[in-house]
């Protein structure tokens, strides 16, 4: 294939390809440069960064920013909270979604149309921010983790993906296990879940990443500083420009403080984004698969 393509490449094609690759190269660089800049800036001495920008001289590098960030309790608590919320949300959400998709995948399921309509309506219309907020208040869920775990736990779109996946599994499996005397629950756990690992991986990853990166629900429902997830801690540092007090308490001059605070932002970004950025390549193949499942359409 390769040789044939090369053989047939005319001059005009070469020019077009050249332009195309240049465009792609520019795009790749535009992604790469900000990421590399942040990574390098996080190691800079604050005075050097402030006056000369990035320096490649190792004498100007320091781990000071990382020391300050990693010594901060709020960051660690944020990490811990976020991990706990994301893990709990993933388990609850994926389990409920997988369960609901099972009967909905059966053509003969009585009430399938009715329930389908009930679920689909929620994809098109909702009560909105204020009625939901009032409801959560009345349920006394403010300042509890349930306020951020439960309202979004059942995801209709994910249910459709799981349902589509179930339907691709031969029906003979169910017939075989019912001959063996298994009821639906036994069949689901012993036969279905093991063969559904790819779709479970996809849904779990999406749920985890989604919860890890969101902040709105936590912002309006979790006022208690102890409960705040990482993204809210980051928000106060990066968006509201208020570094955690403990981080720069030892610095005397205000000008110095401002420089260090700016530097801390770079280190904070690196520390908070690295876990997902390192992890995601390992899950790459599952994401690709998930896209394919999604494009089959429910």
């Amino acid at each position, binding site marked *: 294939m390769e040789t*044939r393509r090369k053989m*047939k490449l005319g001059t*005009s094609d070469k020019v077009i*390809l050249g332009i195309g690759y240049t*465009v*792609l190269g520019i*795009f*790749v660089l*535009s*992604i790469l440069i*900000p990421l590399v800049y942040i990574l390098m800036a996080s190691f800079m001495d604050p005075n050097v960064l402030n006056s000369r*920008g990035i320096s490649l001289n190792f004498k100007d590098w320091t781990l000071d920013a990382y020391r300050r960030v990693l010594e901060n309790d709020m960051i660690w608590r944020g990490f811990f909270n976020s991990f706990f919320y994301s893990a709990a949300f993933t388990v609850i959400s994926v389990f*409920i*979604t997988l*369960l*609901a998709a099972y*009967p909905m995948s059966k053509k*003969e*399921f*009585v*009430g399938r149309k009715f329930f389908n309509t009930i*679920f689909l309506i*929620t994809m098109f*219309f*909702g*009560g*909105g*921010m*204020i*009625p939901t*907020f009032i*409801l959560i208040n009345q349920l006394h869920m403010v300042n509890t983790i349930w306020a951020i775990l439960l*309202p979004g*736990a*059942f995801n209709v779109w994910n249910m459709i993906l799981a349902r589509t996946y179930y339907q691709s599994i031969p*029906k003979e499996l169910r017939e075989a296990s019912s001959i063996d005397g298994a009821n*639906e*629950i036994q069949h689901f756990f012993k036969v279905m879940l093991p063969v559904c690992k790819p779709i479970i991986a996809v849904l779990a990853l999406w749920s985890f*990443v989604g919860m890890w*990166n*969101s*902040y*709105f629900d936590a912002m309006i429902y979790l006022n208690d500083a102890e409960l705040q997830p990482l*993204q809210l801690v980051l928000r106060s*540092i*990066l*968006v509201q420009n208020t570094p955690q007090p403990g981080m720069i308490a030892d610095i005397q001059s205000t000008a110095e403080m401002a420089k260090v605070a700016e530097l801390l*932002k*770079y280190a904070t*970004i690196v520390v*908070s984004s690295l876990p*997902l*950025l390192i992890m*995601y390549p390992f899950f*790459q193949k599952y*994401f*690709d698969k998930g*896209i*394919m499942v999604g*494009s089959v359409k429910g």
Partner: protein
Amino acid sequence: MNILAKKKTSPVKRTAKDKLMYVKKNWQLYLFFLMPALLLTIIFKYLPMGGVLIAFEDYNVIDGILGSEWVGLEYFKRFLSSPDFMEYLMNTLKLSAFGLLWGFPIPIILALLLNRIRREGIRKKIQLLIYAPNFISVIVLCGMVRMFLSPVGPINSLLGIDTNWMTMPSAFRTIYIASGIWQTAGWSSIMYTAALANASKDLEEAAIVDGANIFQQIRYVELPAIKNIIVIQFILQAGNIMSIGFEKAFALQTDMNLPASEILSTYVYRMGLLNGDYGYSTAVGLFNAIINVILLIAVNWVVKKLNDGEGL
């Protein structure tokens, strides 16, 4: 169980008695499998839908939703006649319409370019890199944007100026859309890349043998392979034009850029949760939701027409 049910369903319509039998026999499907999802849906989706009644009343916590005094369409009259509201509505529409216009073609172009790279190793590496920003959180993205664009930030020092971009209403949309492309264009190209990878290689080979140049190959082989996905994606995104998210716009807002950055969802938040004007903000939210539904129904109708009678 299954075999019996199948025999009954396929040839004739089941009677009420058959259905009852099915439910009795398969009670697990209802009580164990469906119930949790159904309960969550009713409590967290349908109860708030009932809560939109607040949009028509002078809500106070003590009297509750059913006991508060009715004010009819007062809130709707109030915001429909307010110039502020019209501005925020236009901000919402412009932000997502321009976002769609600029953001939509780029993933397609990326996928076509990636498809040209025959060396698997290089292509995989590029893909890994351009997907990465998708895993950065909204807060971190907005934090990065604020740092890069700050008066003493790298972009200003590169240009030798000290403009405070984040305070300029005229710069907001560009910042929002450009950073959105930076974050999601690579990731959005996956779908097209996957479809192109599944496209018939034979056809492409034949086109090359016939001496088709690159533009002809793209036009006659590659675009037809992804045409359906392009159409569906465009329509879907067009249908979501009013439901542009809260999180990013809110994280990029400053007091100074509000004239361009205040959109309906952030306005509802400000009026409702910060100012406590529940009725008014619920009315605004309801208005937004209704336009959304109309758009989505229209979109679904179009998809049905294009998709041989099958909607979404």
